């Protein structure tokens, strides 16, 4: 039996979406939810489905993709693009083998910091229940 390491949830986020600057330390770990590490992009449209797969393969518990409110991309279409990729409506999509239960997408404006924190906490909780179910099996 491998010793269970403490796993993290990786957030891939647009730097113009929800404002987390005051919520995280210099390593990108959220103060209120220490399981969550934040990686910033110039636009959520830059996030590749491959990156999500890589994160899960590298041992992340789950991945949060976060962009601006749909309709309000600074670069016009970035959040729509990644949303369509995640939904399998635009190539390249997410591989079928990726566990969809471990990926969540949020579209939040710069002012919705509280909403992000609560959603992130809920997702961490959801992943814990998911783990206990899979372990029980």
């Amino acid at each position, binding site marked *: 039996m491998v010793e269970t390491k403490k796993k993290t949830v990786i957030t891939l986020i647009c730097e113009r979406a929800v404002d987390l600057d005051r919520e995280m330390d210099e390593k990108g770990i959220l103060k209120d939810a220490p399981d969550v590490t934040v990686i910033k992009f110039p636009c959520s449209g830059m996030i*590749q489905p491959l*990156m999500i797969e890589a994160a899960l393969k590298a041992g992340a518990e789950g991945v949060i993709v976060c962009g601006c409110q749909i*309709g*309000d991309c600074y670069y*016009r279409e970035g959040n729509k693009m990644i949303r369509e990729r995640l939904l399998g409506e635009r190539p*390249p999509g997410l591989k079928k083998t990726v566990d969809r239960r471990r990926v969540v997408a949020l579209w939040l404006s710069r002012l919705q910091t509280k909403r992000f924190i609560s959603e992130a906490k809920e997702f961490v909780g959801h992943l814990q229940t998911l783990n206990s179910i899979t372990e029980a099996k």
Partner: protein
Amino acid sequence: MVMQKLYTDPLNKATLWLEHWTNVIATSKYNPFYYHGALPQFYLWVLFLSGLLLFAYYIPTIDNAYASERLINAWTSVDYITKTIPFGAVFRGLHRYAGDAMVLTIILHVLRVWFTDRYRQYRWVQWVSGVVLLLAVLFIGQTGYYLVWDERSLLLTRMTVSAFESLPVIGQPLKDWFINGKEITNLTLSNYLFIHIGLSFMLLFGLWVHYVRMARPVLTPPPVINYILVAITLAVVAMFPIQSGTMAQLTQTPTSFEIDWFFLWPYWMMTKMSMGFFWALMIGAVVLFTAVPWFVRTKPVETAEVVLTKCTGCSLCDKDCPYEAIDMVPAPAGSRFKLLATVKSYRCSGCGLCVGACAFDAIDLPNLLDSDVSNQIKAAAQS
């Protein structure tokens, strides 16, 4: 750095706040702020359609060329449209107020792109063409006021003539062009009609320039927003019906008129200052306004770069680029693939959408490489 500055800017903060609460009320799908460019475009179609009906009945003359018993001219034809044609008054009102609404929504559009920093660098073509479009819209709107040929039209015509005459060198020819001859005749009104309609179609050319650097521009708001916009305009038409003033008489000199603040404010300014000062102010303001994108100095965009050895020519980045900045060119001899992606750096915003579109890690932002992202992800997953 620019971003830090932007997010402490009170105007940007106010815009964000306003949009946030509109989202709460209307949801992001129906947030009019997210269709700010499509709103004036929608009103343009309303103007084209309502204008078509007015055009069918409008007669661009100032007196009766056919010596019939009844006077038939621009004013009486507008009167006929308003009073006799079923819903004529509604169409006339719609045409007038949709014009006002177009100016209003253009102002909203300008303020939003300005306050949210979406007007500079790779977007300068949109800004400059936008200024030209706005000036054209204002001028077209003013010619609409000349067309009804009431006392206000006559006064506006005379004010425009004296404004043109005050300009050195080009003044006289400009005046002759404007009234289509040396003095106000029937030909003046046919010229007004040509300017009004001809220039409206030129707007379409201007809009092409405005949109050419954008893939998939948002041209139409969702139907619900369109219905609401039309409903609001119709409500205004019903509440404040449009009426012409007294018919213009060339022998008389009207001295005052009701002002439409969306289009006729330059005429208000003319009454408050000398013509020389008026022109200096207008030209200066337009030059300053056009130069707005160059007021903020920032370092140039770090544009995307294609990794020549990895690109398979699949053209997904070309399809997804929101600024039409990627071109597929024939691959160099000896390549296994037919095509190769190339970046037009003068159009690139450095947003990285092409990176997201690439399944082969074949395109990179120099300031955030694919490999850097992978390392960050691995480090975060294993910490």
